[in-house]
């Protein structure tokens, strides 16, 4: 048993293994405000990796409708309930968001899934979902909390729902890895991708029980557990399309709504991110703090971050994304010039962007947000590859083309 630093909790915590420092960490930011639940990501993953016998109920990528939906059914509510049962009334945060890479959201004073576990029957508090719970991945699709007759308006909608796209979080302190009695799960030193060794796995499903996000899944036709592999062949540059250069996973590259920005970030030995404001993910997570971890209180230090939906009641969002929610929504709603430009880089290229720059452009208009006037500039965001070569450039103002009626050939 080791003491490790979990920067998302702003404190040290107990974990089964000493921390390892991957060369880079697989990470991504999902902008929930843009997701339309088209499930293109889901099908891109499904048709690539989980189309075979025994994988029928397996969706490594899924999009569920919150607050009622979940795959498997109510996965988050059940895990939250287990933690609350273990530490009644104690799952609370202390402090406010600050610019501190070791404790950006204050300090979590409650218990993580590891700390709430007895260490004898479970390494992490959790439960094993039954087959029926995996069978309806998009149950409660588009179900709002209610339909107010008078309609809804910002800042918080009276009746609401939102879409939550999820993949494996490739956690810094994975619960699945800690729970495997055979050490069949490992985190790659190269990119922090968490994998199940298919030769060692004996299908005990302790990982399925332990993963609070329920992203390890049992496959009866091989009697082993499989999970999201982070499309590691693409991340390694194996896809012929990019000629050996690192490429985003299928779910990211296929995103129609342009909600996703994927990347590999540099990390320190204590698990914190190396200071690098030119990295798009570092900028979103640490500079602007608009992207937040999903259920950081679980304690696994997940590496998929979310820009929270701005119309949803804040208490719900605080439970899901921690105390940084109010600040994140405030900054997203009134974005800085850099942030607004960077948001255009989402899904602009299939190649992994390692750094970005913003070239200033002319003022093109003014917006009124919450009674406040915001100036808009047509800046240009430029994405670079690992060696500094330009991959893509996108303007804030989307170009408009008018097609002459006479040449309409459709």
């Amino acid at each position: 048993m080791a003491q490790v630093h979990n920067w998302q909790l702003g404190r040290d915590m107990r974990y089964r293994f000493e921390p390892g420092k991957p060369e880079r960490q697989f990470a991504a930011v999902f902008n929930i405000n843009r997701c339309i639940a088209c499930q293109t990501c889901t099908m891109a993953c499904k048709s690539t990796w989980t189309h075979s016998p025994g994988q029928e109920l397996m969706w490594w990528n899924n999009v569920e409708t919150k607050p009622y939906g979940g795959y498997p059914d109510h996965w988050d509510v059940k895990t939250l309930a287990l933690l609350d049962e273990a530490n009644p009334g104690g799952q609370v945060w202390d402090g406010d968001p600050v610019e501190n890479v070791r404790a950006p959201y204050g300090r979590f004073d409650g218990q993580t899934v590891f700390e709430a576990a007895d260490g004898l029957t479970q390494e992490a508090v959790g439960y094993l979902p039954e087959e029926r719970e995996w069978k309806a991945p998009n149950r409660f699709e588009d179900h709002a909390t209610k339909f107010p007759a008078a309609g809804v308006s910002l800042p918080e909608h009276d009746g609401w729902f939102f879409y939550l796209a999820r993949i494996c979080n490739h956690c810094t302190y994975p619960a699945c890895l800690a729970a495997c009695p055979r050490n069949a799960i490992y985190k790659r030193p190269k990119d922090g991708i968490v994998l199940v060794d298919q030769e060692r796995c004996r299908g005990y499903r302790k990982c399925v029980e332990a993963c609070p996000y329920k992203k390890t899944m049992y496959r009866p036709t091989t009697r082993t557990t499989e999970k999201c592999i982070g499309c590691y062949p693409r991340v390694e540059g194996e896809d012929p399309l990019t000629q050996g250069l690192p490429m985003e996973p299928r779910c990211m590259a296929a995103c129609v709504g342009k909600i996703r920005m994927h990347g590999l970030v540099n990390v320190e030995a204590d698990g914190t991110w190396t200071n690098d404001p030119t990295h798009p993910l570092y900028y979103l997570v640490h500079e602007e703090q608009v992207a937040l971890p999903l259920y950081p209180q679980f304690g696994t230090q997940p590496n998929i971050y979310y820009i929270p939906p701005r119309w949803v009641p804040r208490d719900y969002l605080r439970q899901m994304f921690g105390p940084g929610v109010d600040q994140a929504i405030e900054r997203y709603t009134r974005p800085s010039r850099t942030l607004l430009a960077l948001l255009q880089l989402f899904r602009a290229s299939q190649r992994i962007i390692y750094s970005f720059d913003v070239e200033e452009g002319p003022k093109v208009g003014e917006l009124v947000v919450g009674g406040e006037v915001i100036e808009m500039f047509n800046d240009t965001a430029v994405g670079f590859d690992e060696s500094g070569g330009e991959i893509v450039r996108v303007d804030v103002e989307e170009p408009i083309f008018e097609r002459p009626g006479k040449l309409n050939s459709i």
Partner: protein
Amino acid sequence: MLSYRRSRALGWLSTRRIVFFAFVMLTALVLRVMDVNPAVAQSRSVTAWKVAESPGLDPDSPIWDEITALTIPLTAQQVTAPVGGGTVPSVRVSAAHHDQTLYVNIEWTDTTLDDGSGAPEEFADAVAIQIPAEHGAAVPAVCMGQADGAVNIWQWRADRQHGLDQLGKGSDFVDLYPNTDELFYPAQRAGNALATPGAEVVQNLVASGFGTLEPASLGVVAGQGRHLDSQWRAVFARPFPAQDDFQPTFKAGVEFDVAFAVWDGRRADRDGQKSVSSFVRLKVSDKTAAQPTTGGSEGGSSTGWLIVLTAAILGFGAYAVFIFLIPKPAPSKEDAV
């Protein structure tokens, strides 16, 4: 003053004496009735008698009727995480050998048949035999062996048995996925024997500590199980000569250490969540069994009553020590008043 104290002490002791003696006798009787005797388990042994005909893999072969099984107590595994088990109190083990092949028949009570692993929450019933990989060396740790003392494990799993029984009877998968192949079964492609269809029912494994379990040679141990009237029976068969370095060579006239483990699928037993025994001795006898024989050399009824008698004598001994050797505490002022 003295006589007052003495008579008071004796009165207290005479009441205690009856209760204490009754307790000892009752405990011994309960142990006898349940046939549970952990303290003596290590010294008990299973004898593999030489039999004239092969019992084969049929758990109900009449040959097994001629050999009385030895009951071996099991307890919950509580040494390493994940702990668990403890719901199967014992196994009844009999053994035989014929034509240089060792047969072990294990029977245990399980009211629920769990032979599937098709759903995420389904776990199969299973039983395993553990034998030190190297015969004659120091006995390794009973819990999965140790770094310098590997153990050979034969595990029979009900879902594998069920899967094999279904082979050739047609499968939905074949019709639904006509073009699938090994490429889409990563575990199979990685050489995971557990994921390979049609592989043998009994897995031959080796371990040298917690979490180190690995497959050993394939095709070494045969087996078959059946569930009837809340009883599982599973037969293991292995030729005497060792096929690799991770298993002992059996020989008539030689003794081996064996331990047993049972998993109850209904209780989600798997991995360390199992009911386990300590090591007992397996005597591979060069004699043919008399009719009827006793599988356990100390498993006869006389042994049980011997336990009762021993417990009673020990009880009296403890009582005597209590009475005559332990000095009485001096009375307090309150006592004297």
